[in-house]
């Protein structure tokens, strides 16, 4: 099953919502730590939600490379194959 970028984006935005306490507008440049103020506990829950949604693994090694929303969408697209 292939998904277009817009579809993946929309699904991830829906997953961010419960963690987006300040209702920051999401663009490709939105950073998880600096803009959304995710702490390590939030990151864990959020990553687990993404992994379950797309049935993928995002290892800690891969997480280290992902700073903003756009990078996450690209990573999920890639991991989906």
């Amino acid at each position: 099953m292939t998904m277009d970028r817009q579809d993946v984006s929309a699904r991830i935005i829906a997953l961010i919502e419960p963690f987006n306490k300040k209702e920051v507008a999401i663009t490709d440049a939105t950073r998880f730590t600096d803009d959304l103020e995710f702490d390590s506990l939030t990151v864990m829950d959020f990553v687990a939600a993404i992994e379950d949604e797309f049935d993928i693994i995002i290892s800690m090694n891969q997480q280290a490379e992902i700073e903003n929303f756009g990078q996450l969408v690209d990573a999920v697209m890639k991991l989906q194959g």
Partner: protein
Amino acid sequence: MTDMISENQTADHADLFSKFDPLIKMRTDLLSTGVTDPFGLVMERVISPTVAMCNGRETILLGTYNYMGMTFDPDVIAAGKQALDDFGSGTTGSRVLNGTYSPHKAVEQALCDFYDMKHAMVFSTGYQANLGIISTIAGKGDYIVLDIDSHASIWDGCKMGDAEVVPFKHNDIEAMEKRLRRIPEGAGKLVVLEGVYSMLGDIAPLKEMIATAKKYGAMVLVDEAHSMGFIGPNGRGVAEEQGVLDDVDFVIGTFSKSVGTVGGFCVSNHPKFEVMRLVCRPYVFTASLPPSVVATACTSIRKLMDAGEKRAHLWENSKTLHKGLTDAGFQLGTTEPQSAIISVIMPDLERGAAMWEALLHEGLYVNLARPPATPANMTLLRCSLCAEHSAEQVQQIIGMFTRAGEAVNILG
């Protein structure tokens, strides 16, 4: 040449220490309240496994991990003195060069006998045992699946190696299984678990978790640092207690808790285990333990094989303290006592530190644990019981907690 900086000039530099500013501020703020530094305690004299002099006051020790009280065992001390006389103060060398003396082989044999396993490898600390084994056996393209609340030494072992690191929610069997299921076919898998998690004193459902790990073809490493000597019919740990020790590929442990000295180890039945001595860098590139240390460990381990009565008394202590603190109104890390660790949850760091100090004034030492070492950013007063605590001391401890809790307004 013109764009080179003259040798006589110095440029402004970014202070590499500025990254620690938030921590320095947190510490300064805490100490400015006038509270005693919880991380600066000095014991002037140690009287027994359960009592020391701190700030001139006789203090009951309830935060030492000295679970089986072996530190002052006469046989253990005699073995150490003998080894000092016979082998000197230190080896000045690596285990694979000049640092293996007969007491090092003897302690490894004692571990094989204690766990009924074929191979044992002793490291200079428990930290290095996790660091060395995990970083060495899980390589590029392999996957490490581990509990999110794992000890720092496990995380550092992951970071030092080249494997893909995949954490799951604490003690969550389903979350672990999902991750194992998603690992690409053919990749090597290592599941890393702990028997007792030291922050809250809770144990892992190893029986179910190990069965799941095996279903997906993973090798299993269990850190039994906080259970050795105490949990399980022979003190081999939580895996033994739950009847699954045979399915554990690697047990990691330490000499710095129940054994009563310092050092770490890995025991295993893996047929190729001995190659670790050549490829495991934290084993090779460090000096071996002093002969007196391994001699005390060896004697202690052999005595722990036959310590059923002490184990029973320690369980009594754990149950009594857990009930006493619950009845007094404290919020604990577990609803039932699961180990020799009873963790008391504090509302915040400030009141946690105040409570810690009030207990010290009462004559009781516990560990203050704070983020980032703690799960869910909790501040904890962590109590670890000893088989040498008398029933009377445990009652004293409950009284001290109650008085201190009232004094700092943690109890209603």
